[in-house]
């Protein structure tokens, strides 16, 4: 059914886009995303991918171009990072409000200044309120799987879909990935469809409308995104039947009997799992709830899974003046302690997590007034000059 090899996250995403029989790709290069569209350009050039590759002069144009092709009924893809994402921000909202299905991969990268190419999840999470479906990969395999899942889910609910993956830790890291043969992807991913067809009758897209239409459309989008929870459940089960790999909304790791629960997303979750295994050897009852999707956010499921546990939310991002963005989200359903760490790509590994989780379980985290703890303390205490 599949071939096992090693690939970087960027290569794996390009391969997933090819297997999805994507018809239009438009993108503007930005580190660390560039390799994705370089690979796709090579595939189009060599005939491996039968798609239109549109070179554009900016990220705003990249998303505008695939908006156009997606509206016209073509399976479309783009990718970006950080400042590129911010530059296309107007189109982010336009695409979601227009209910256009397409897929974009965001290789998460710090927003400057200072100029910084390393991972941080704040760029991806600036899309939180826009109406996009937002997923986040833990490893190269998930980046591959989520990209394929993305086309299916996006086209089923008529909402744009983004999958995030960490700069360098996934985008440039080669690791084991089980690829899929074309026939299995074709079986899982039917031909591109959408809720209207171009026919004899002329119609306009994105024109001016009465306020009541606008209000109704917003509520429709809101409900469609909430309803996507069930669609992700269904689609990820189907994908699991084909591949044996689940890409559902949440992943529980040693959570059942845990008294302490960590909530997080992204590539560093793997380090946290290794740390949890170490602490379990010392009989510390700690587990992990990994968020694979930020929108839709399954609040009720999260509440149920975390009920009665001491909760620690780890953020690699920040909502200025409020807290970590996941912290703010999770506090919608349970009480939680919130740590912001790894900002600007600061390396956080297994030993850091062991230390962090131990201090948390011992109740020794001195939380500041706004309820957020910035880790590691020595960076902030020293006051870098």
């Amino acid at each position, binding site marked *: 059914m599949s071939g*096992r*090899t*090693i690939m970087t996250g960027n290569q794996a995403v390009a391969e997933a886009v090819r297997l999805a029989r994507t018809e239009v790709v438009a993108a503007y290069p930005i580190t660390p995303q560039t390799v994705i569209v370089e690979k796709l350009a090579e595939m189009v050039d060599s005939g491996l991918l039968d798609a239109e590759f549109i070179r554009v002069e900016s990220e705003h144009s990249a998303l505008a171009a695939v908006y156009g092709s997606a509206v016209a009924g073509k399976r479309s893809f783009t990718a970006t990072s950080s400042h590129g994402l911010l530059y296309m921000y107007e189109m982010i909202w336009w695409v979601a409000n227009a209910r256009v299905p397409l897929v974009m991969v965001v290789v998460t990268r710090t927003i400057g200044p200072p100029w910084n*190419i*390393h991972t941080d999840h704040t760029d991806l999470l600036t899309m939180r309120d826009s109406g996009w479906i937002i997923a986040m990969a*833990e*490893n190269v395999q998930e980046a591959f799987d989520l990209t394929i899942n993305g086309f299916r889910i996006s086209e089923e609910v008529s909402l744009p879909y983004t999958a995030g993956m*960490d*700069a*360098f*830790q*996934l985008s*440039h*890291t*080669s*690791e*084991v990935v089980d690829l899929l043969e074309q026939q299995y992807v074709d079986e899982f991913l039917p031909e591109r469809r959408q809720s209207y067809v171009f026919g004899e009758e002329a119609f306009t897209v994105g024109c001016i409308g009465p306020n009541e239409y606008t209000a109704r459309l917003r509520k429709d989008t809101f409900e469609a995104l909430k309803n996507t929870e069930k669609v992700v459940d269904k689609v990820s089960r189907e994908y699991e039947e084909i591949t044996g790999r689940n890409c559902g909304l949440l992943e529980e790791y040693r959570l059942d009997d845990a008294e302490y629960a960590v909530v997080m997303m992204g*590539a*560093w*979750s*793997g*380090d946290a*799992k*290794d740390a949890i295994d170490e602490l379990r050897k010392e009989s510390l009852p700690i587990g992990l709830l990994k968020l694979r999707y930020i929108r839709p956010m399954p609040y009720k499921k999260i509440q149920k899974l975390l009920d009665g546990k001491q909760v620690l939310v780890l953020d690699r991002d920040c909502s200025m003046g409020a807290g970590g963005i996941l912290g703010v989200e999770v506090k919608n359903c349970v009480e939680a302690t919130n740590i912001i760490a790894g900002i600007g*790509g600061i*390396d*956080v*590994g*297994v*030993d*850091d997590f062991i230390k962090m989780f131990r201090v948390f379980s011992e109740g020794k985290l001195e939380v500041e007034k706004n309820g957020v703890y910035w880790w590691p303390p020595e960076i902030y205490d020293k006051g870098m000059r």
Partner: protein
Amino acid sequence: MLREIVILSFGGQGGVTAARILALAAVMDGKYAQAIPQFGAERRGSLVKSYLRLSDEPIRRHSSIKKADVVSIFAERILNIVDIKNMLKDEGFTIVNAESGGDFCINASKIALNLNLVSAGWPIVNTAMAGAMANTLGIRKESVVKAIKDTFSGKVAEVNATAAEIAYEEVYECQ
């Protein structure tokens, strides 16, 4: 068992590619592997760190390697500018492109020069080093050769595979 390896090379020596070749070879041996380039702007001539993880089980962590089981040093001069001991576990070992100075030694530069593996005046030592490392790491010779042939094509693939084979046989304990 998880083994963590750090490759120290100068930009342009191919340390990143060596890590990737060895990861691919390990996967061909039925293992799990991960190759991480140093995160940043790699420049020709500057010191570059690459990370390689090998394991019998899926590798979940993505952080950098602070204390390695093995440090592989692509240029003898690096021994003078990096505190190797500081990044090596007590029971760890080194493998160095030199006649002496490491736990394992291989004259990868000589192998590369003999095969005319030269680019912009430098011997390209990464495939010879990959061959020597494969031996000390328990990766099969056939796998590292195949990984090289999957990575390059034509005559380049053949010559690099030969470099790896020679180094695989010639690497020795030098203390």
